[in-house]
């Protein structure tokens, strides 16, 4: 059953080809006349030589060795692996979207600009922000853009002593990494015993060096930060700004808006909340929205409208500049916009409602067998601890591998860091009750298996195309490319 799959390079046979090109129809000049010898390539290209049908079979087989949302339940916490509607894929490849050059004259891109404009209006309403840029290509890219905007705002006011950004311990890893990229120092704020940001600790940490507080609400524990108003007040009074990591906006659409909570800057993950596929790692999209006073610092260009003509506005003298070569992942925006059109206000709110019902329901089922460190109403996700199972010999990572054997994608493991042996479960809005029931049953079964033979569970998975892979070996002796074996 188990086997490795040959690499394209190992399948290669000299002389095979998977393409056809028309013959050159302009008069051909000698190569040396067009390119000096010393500028020419000396070594062979070393690419594989294959026919088209071999390539298709190769990738078809690879696809069967891969698990997606279309394969099955994918409760990967924080990643919002909801269903990716098929119509989105179809419209994004319309030639009028997919085959446009970013430098085309404005009169030839009116439909694209109208789409971006409409999308911005929708995002503003959903978040209570005043302007958006769709330039950031991913969530982390949005974070960096947002911090750059905050930095430009402080610098513009001559406020140069603000060199720290506060983040809760439960934050996504991208938050502290982004803070460093923007040249700021990280100040970590602990959580209280309810799993929420410790308000007193926050109040103590804010001062005239605070540039911003970065916060996800609901948090990575899936809990709504109930004290958001006093938190916002504390940061604002010290002259800092509030940054909203929108990774979890999918829990509260139509219920609450970051702009109404006091946030000054938000980024959204359109590959999470707005159903665009994650592509095995990307492309995503990370639009950034800001309140009025920060608009002057947004990246250029912004999309605007004058007398029913859409245009790209570069006239933003205080702008941070650009964060992407062009306008961001337009093709991803087309999919997200289509989703928003089809859901409407009621549908988006229902998506949040169902995400929260599904999470609380699954939490109710699972807390019978797994430790639930913060036992309260959650939003779109919740975090279990496999500490009791670990004591018996199989922890969160082993439970994840056991789930692979039973046809489920595991939850996120070992994150957030504030929960030992964490299992972070996000069922999303697009799953049926029967799926959650089946998952809970399997999770119960795995807990029983650990009671009976933890050793066996600790050595899984058993039914996958390869067994548990040695990640330590991969890191110690990194092999990051294929190389031709010399006989």
């Amino acid at each position: 059953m188990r086997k490795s799959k040959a690499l394209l390079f190992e399948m290669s046979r000299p002389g095979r080809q998977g393409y056809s090109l028309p013959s050159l129809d302009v008069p051909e000049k000698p190569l040396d006349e067009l390119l000096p010898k010393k500028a020419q390539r000396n070594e062979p290209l070393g690419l594989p030589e294959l026919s088209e049908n071999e390539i298709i079979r190769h990738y078809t087989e690879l696809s069967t060795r891969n698990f997606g949302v279309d394969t099955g339940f994918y409760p990967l916490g924080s990643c919002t692996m909801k269903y990716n509607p098929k119509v989105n894929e179809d419209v994004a490849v319309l030639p009028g979207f997919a085959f446009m050059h970013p430098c085309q004259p404005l009169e030839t891109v009116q439909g694209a600009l109208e789409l971006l404009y409409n999308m911005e209006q929708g995002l503003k309403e959903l978040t209570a922000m005043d302007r958006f840029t769709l330039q950031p290509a991913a969530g982390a890219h949005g974070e960096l853009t947002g911090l750059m905007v905050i930095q430009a705002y402080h610098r513009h006011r001559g406020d140069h002593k603000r060199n720290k950004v506060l983040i809760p311990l439960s934050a996504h890893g991208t938050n502290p990494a982004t803070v460093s990229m923007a040249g700021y120092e990280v100040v970590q704020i602990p959580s209280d015993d309810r799993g929420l940001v410790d308000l007193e600790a926050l109040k103590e940490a804010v001062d005239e060096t605070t540039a911003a507080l970065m916060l996800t609400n609901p948090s990575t524990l899936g809990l709504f930060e109930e004290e958001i108003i006093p938190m916002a007040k504390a940061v604002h009074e010290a002259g800092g700004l509030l940054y909203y990591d929108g990774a979890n906006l999918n829990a509260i659409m139509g219920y609450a808006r970051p702009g109404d909570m006091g946030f000054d800057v938000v980024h959204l993950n359109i590959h999470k909340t707005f159903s665009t596929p994650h592509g095995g790692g990307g492309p995503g999209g990370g639009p950034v929205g800001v309140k009025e006073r920060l608009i002057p610092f947004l990246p250029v260009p912004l999309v605007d409208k004058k007398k029913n003509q859409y245009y790209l506005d570069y006239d933003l003298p205080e702008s941070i500049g650009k964060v992407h070569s062009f306008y961001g992942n337009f093709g991803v925006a087309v999919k997200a916009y289509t989703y928003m059109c089809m859901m409407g206000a009621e549908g988006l709110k229902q998506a949040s409602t169902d995400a929260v019902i599904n999470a609380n329901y699954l939490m109710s089922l699972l807390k019978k067998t797994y430790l639930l460190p913060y036992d309260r109403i959650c939003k779109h996700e919740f975090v279990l601890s496999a500490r009791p199972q670990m004591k018996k010999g199989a922890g969160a990572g082993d439970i994840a591998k056991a789930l692979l054997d039973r046809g489920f994608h595991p939850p996120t493991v070992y994150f957030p860091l504030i929960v030992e042996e964490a299992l972070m479960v996000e069922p999303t809005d697009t799953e049926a009750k029967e799926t959650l029931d089946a998952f809970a049953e399997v999770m119960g079964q795995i807990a029983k298996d650990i009671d009976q033979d933890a050793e066996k569970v600790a050595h899984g998975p058993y039914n996958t195309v390869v067994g548990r892979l040695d990640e330590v070996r991969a890191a110690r002796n990194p092999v990051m490319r294929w190389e031709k074996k010399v006989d």
Partner: protein
Amino acid sequence: MGGKHYLPLTDEDRRQMLAVIGVKSVDDLFSDIPSEVRLQRELDLPPALAESEAIEHLNSLASKNKHFHNCVSFMGAGVYDHFIPSIIKHVTGRSEFYTSYTPYQPEISQGVLQAIFEYQTMICQLTGMDVSNASMYDGGTAVAEGAVMGCGSTRRSKALVSRSVSPFYREVLSNYFNSRGLDLEEIPIVDGHTDLSELEKLLGEDVASVVLQQPNFFGLVEDMDGVADMVHNHKAVLIVSADPLSLPLLQSPADYGADIVVGEGQGLGVPASFGGPLLGIMAARSKFVRQMPGRIAGETVDGEGNRGFVLTLQTREQHIRREKAASNICSNEALVALGAAVYLAALGPQGMREVAEQCLQKAAYTLEKITALEGFEVVFPGNIFKEFAVKIPGKPAELNKKLLEKNILGGVDLAPFYPELENTMLFAVTEKRTREEIDALVRELEGWK
């Protein structure tokens, strides 16, 4: 209500589930949101559309745009109308690939992981580098992160960037550097090429890296002879932004001594999509791997010795290292990289060479024809690959307007980026342009003004 076909819970399901949770109503599940921040009205968004209505709406938006299928494009500047073989969308359209997340669970993600490993290998073959990552967002962010990497590996804080590097990339680079408090200085150009004698003067012990582009933004082939030695003599790092489609013909960056190769991979079968999603290429010599941003797939084995692939060297990454990570990048352009790998596999060494040769020949033919016209002059002497700058007898916007009447997407106006280059346009000619299309362009230019 909109979107019902994506929401499987029925009213009866919800009732049962609320009972199991132990709450009376949905409202109880949102009672943790303080009333001051609760939205007290419904969202004000356009009414939901049915699938057929959504398709019609999106079709009508798309139909307002011109594109490569109803126009003949000579636009370049980093994004090109190269031919895209059908096979690519059939591979990237397999939903086991496109509906998966970053491959954190390798045993059920061998498809994506092996595809990335193969992609990395192909990028290494093209560039001559030892290691490639799984992709960056685009050429601009790849250049910026490459320069940040140069600072990290040399523990110096200044980069020198040639003015012949794409202004789109330089804007992103300058933004990244400004935010992080790093210094950036421009290397002047002479006749469209990097001024190497000026570069020599600018180099010093504070310089971490030198960023060049090959072919450069004007389509010119830079003379790389001796550049790496000059840079290395000052213990700085040579970063080159390369067009992967030029590499079958041009000397490989490893061959002329580059340390880090970045670039835009859109030409590798990626739809232009109004400038995104694109494909940021990032490759380097092995000694830089610890500073490299982003995902890297690596080979390993399972307990029985079967070969498999995992994400490796993750201690560089944000989810492990947090504020000490090499970069904050998490999502990348994995599916685009998959498509690029399919492109490279389909074209193979022979096809890649043919594409590059056709670009070279057709661009040369076009340049010769255009500059033979009265009033049109070549701006920079030198060797080109697939694009070139031309001085025209009038305003680029006006010429483009005239060309558009014939469904030709003309060139890119250079004045917004290089104020000294008034009435100058950058034309790109890919392998896809036919002699007939090129001659039609030339006919339109003839006698203009």
